[in-house]
Each structure stands twice: as C-alpha cells, then as structure tokens.
C-alpha cells in the first residue's frame, strides 16, 4: 500500500536507454513530487521524449526503472497508472470526428456516456459537435484534442510532451491557464518543451536535458 500524500509522483532510478549503439538516455535518476508542475527543457534530440516514453511504459529501459505513484513500470504495471499522456503528436483516426475518436478511448477506459468526453473537448476550447474528421483539423486543434484525450480519465498525473506545439498565442495562454487549474486541483504535471520560455513561468521545477543527461532541478531559466 502506498501513501498517496507522501509517495512522489514519479521516481526514475538509473534509467539508461540504448537504441543499437546509441545511448539516448544516460543513467538518469530523479524524483518529481506530486501536486506540482515540473518541466523538462532541452534541444530536439536531447532525450526528453524517450524519457517520457520510458516513464509512461511505451519503452522498456535498457537499465534502471521508473515508478509512478510507487508502482514500477514494466513490473507492477504495463503502463503508468492514473496517468494521462500526450507524447509527440497525438495519433487519431483521420476520418473520425474528435468526439468519435475520444469516445473509443473513453470506452477502453470504462467511461460510460458522452458527458465526460464532451466536457474534456470543451475544456480545451474545441467544439464537441464539430462534424469534420480529425484529418482536417489544424495542427493546433489536433494538439488540443490530444490534451483532451489526456484529461479523459481525470488522471492524477499528466505527462505532456511539447503540449503547446502548433498552438497560437491565445492557445498557449489557454493551455497555461488549464495547467494552472489542474495544479490547483492537486494534479501533477510533467511537461517537456524545447522552448524554455514556454514553460519557465509555469513550472515549480525545471530540469534541463542535454545529450541524454539531466541536470539538477532549478526553478528559473536564464535565457
């Protein structure tokens, strides 16, 4: 039994990830507290996405392990428990509407009815009645739908990789407001961006990744 209040949201212990001869993540160890917004910044290819995929359970690390709410990924559970995620661009069926895409995912999560799906779509500023297929959505709209998808199960932890990709200024502001609101509800957010400006004002802690190595946590970033 784990204590909800004291268990860190994410613990990463000596994670190393190799793809062939390439070591993409080099023995990262760190802990992210629950109830806060944490940021990871770093250039493209610095290993942020791979680390997030390891935490979510999509990739099995070559060495080390990740724990989410005290449960070891790949041992206790297949994928991170009580977690919503948006990693890289969201994958949706292009001919289906946003509502239809999310309804399928909601069914898998055991959610009944359309209300929760509708509420999540509205939460990210999209119209749940929009009849066009996701393939015809703009990049920003798809990104918003991806975030709605992550919120679907009302998870305690959100793992968001480049959540502001493709969003206009207003979209970025809305996203920040949404994340602050989620934090106020006690949720934990781990978000990655290649642009420190995107997240510096938003995060309680920020770490930088470079060449598969992660820095110690610090709050503000000087550009």
């Amino acid at each position, binding site marked *: 039994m784990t204590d909800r209040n004291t268990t860190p949201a994410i613990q990463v212990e000596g994670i190393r990830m190799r793809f062939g001869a390439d070591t993409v993540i080099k023995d990262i160890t760190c802990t992210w507290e629950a109830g806060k917004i944490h940021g990871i910044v770093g250039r493209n290819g610095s290993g942020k996405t791979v680390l997030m*995929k390891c935490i*979510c*359970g*999509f*990739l*099995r690390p070559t060495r080390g392990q990740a724990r989410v709410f005290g449960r070891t990924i*790949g041992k206790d559970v*297949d*994928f991170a428990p009580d977690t919503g*995620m948006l*990693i*890289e*661009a*969201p*994958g*949706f*069926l*292009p*001919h289906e509407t946003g509502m239809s895409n999310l309804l*399928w*995912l909601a*069914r*898998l*999560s055991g959610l009944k009815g359309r209300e929760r799906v509708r509420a999540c779509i509205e939460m990210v500023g999209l119209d749940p009645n929009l009849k066009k297929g*996701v*393939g015809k959505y703009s990049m920003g709209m*798809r990104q918003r739908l991806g975030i709605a*998808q992550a919120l679907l199960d009302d998870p305690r932890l959100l793992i968001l990789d480049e959540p502001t990709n493709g969003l206009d200024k207003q979209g970025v502001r809305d996203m920040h407001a949404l994340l602050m609101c989620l934090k106020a509800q006690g949720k934990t957010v781990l978000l990655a961006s290649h642009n420190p400006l995107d997240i510096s004002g938003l995060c309680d802690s920020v770490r930088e990744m470079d060449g598969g190595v992660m820095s110690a946590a610090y709050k503000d970033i000087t550009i």
Partner: protein
Amino acid sequence: MCDLRKAWLCAEWNLYTLRKNPRFYLALVIGCLLCWMLTDRTLAISRDFHTDLQVFEAFIWCFADGDSILYASLVLMLVLSAFPRLDAAGSYVSFRAGRRAWLLGQVLTVLVITLGYCLLLLICSMLLGAGRVHARNIWSDTATLLSFSPGGFDPAFAVTRKMVKLTLPYPALAQIFVLLFLFMLLLSSVQLAFTVLKSRQTGTALALLICLTGFILTPERFMQWLHLPLEFTFYANLLAAWLSPLQHATYMMHNFGYDLLPRLSTSMLLLGGASVALLALSALHMRHYNYVFSGGIAHD
C-alpha cells in the same frame, strides 16, 4: 474479465478502422473475383452437362486444391498487413488497454478477419452455384461425372474418386473449411508474431515466404530435384505433404487410411499448434516490446 472486455474493445476498434481502409474493400472484391474464377471450372461442367450441384461443392472442389488456398491466402494478407496497429493511434489504445489485453485484441482481430474471409469465400461460392444446387448430404451428378468419367476432365482438378468414395459433402466441407482457416491463421500468426518480435516488414516477408514454400515444395519439384522416376511419385507426395505447410492445408494430400500421408487431424494439429506457439511467443515478447511510434495522423 476486465482484460477480456478491453481485448474485445481493441479488436472492435481495429475492425472499426477497416471501415475507411481501401485495402479492405479491395481484398473483398478480389476475394469474390477469385472465388468466381476458381469455381468457374466446376460450374462450367455443371452448366454444360446440365447436372446439379451440392450447395457446398463449388467450395469443396475449389479449396480442396492447394493453389486455390494459396491465392485466397495472398488476398487475405492484403488486409492483415495493416495489423497489428503499432502506429501512434494504436499505441494510445494500447496505453489504455494494457499490453496483454491489446495483444489479445490483435489475436481476436486476426481470428475474426480470417474467419470472416473464409465465410465470405464459402458464401460467394454458394451464390455462384445458386440455381442448380441442392442441400442434401450426398454428392451431386456433377461430382459423379467428375470422379468417375473415364479419363476425367482435368488431371489438375481437385476432384478425385478418393473424396467422393470416402466421405460426404458436409464432413468434407467442414474439414476443408478448417484446413483453409488454419492455414490462413498460420500466416496471420506469423505476420503478427514477427511484427512484434522484429518489424512489420519481417512479419510480412515471412508470411509471404510461407506462401512461397507452397509454390516451391510440390511433389513435381521433389520429383525434379531428386530425379525420381514416375513410379516413385508416392515418395515425392510424401515429402511435399509432410514438409510444405500449404500441402498440410490441402485436403487431397492426406491419409485416408491406406498410405503414409499425414492424417487430417495431424495436419490440423500442426497448423493450429504452430499458430498457438507463435501467438504465445508474441505474448511473451509483448511484455518487453518497445513502442516506437512517432505520432501524427494515423492511416485508417
């Protein structure tokens, strides 16, 4: 129980995505065309000699033959090459379902598609013969004509006295249907297992390789390779029947009680066992599978 529900939902989602997949419709059309082309010889004889047909005979005569099974399987590969879905959309589904339920969902998808396709071929062949068919469990005049006419109509025809003498249409249909289904299931399992173990390309290539062995490992080739005289055809038949997966699915290449060819039950066990082993292997590997999706819009 929860896993089963999620697995079924994964399968349902997979099948739902076929709605907008042009390859699926292409395979349906080609499957029907193929059925029409392959059954035409039987139907032509029935037309020309004004003889009746047992309702399942068009299917039986057609798919008792290895070549027909092979062509039909290749068409099925067109649909199954889309599975398992390991793109971003599939990965998001997997995240919610869990690895085990997701894989079980892929197995269910493969089973449903393969069974559905076999049924399509059966129904198609029944419709093509409509008008001059009966449903009784006895061979038709066409079958008698094909089996016992002096010299036969076509030596390549899968109709032989052996079948007409030894069995009846309903059990023959059941056995041919199961063999066809199991061979297709084997191809699908190879495709699924090696996509998970290695890559989609490897999975498809190996499934095609099994089809290729069907072309290569025939009695005629063994006769050629081993320079066997005609009186040793039996040994070439034996080699082909035991070594080629396709010949295991070919009804006529079986032991009906008086030779050393594999028995129907042995072939069914081998084809089914190989499929189960491959699916078990993919289940084992799935626990450590690395999802390497790169996001973006999925292809339906």
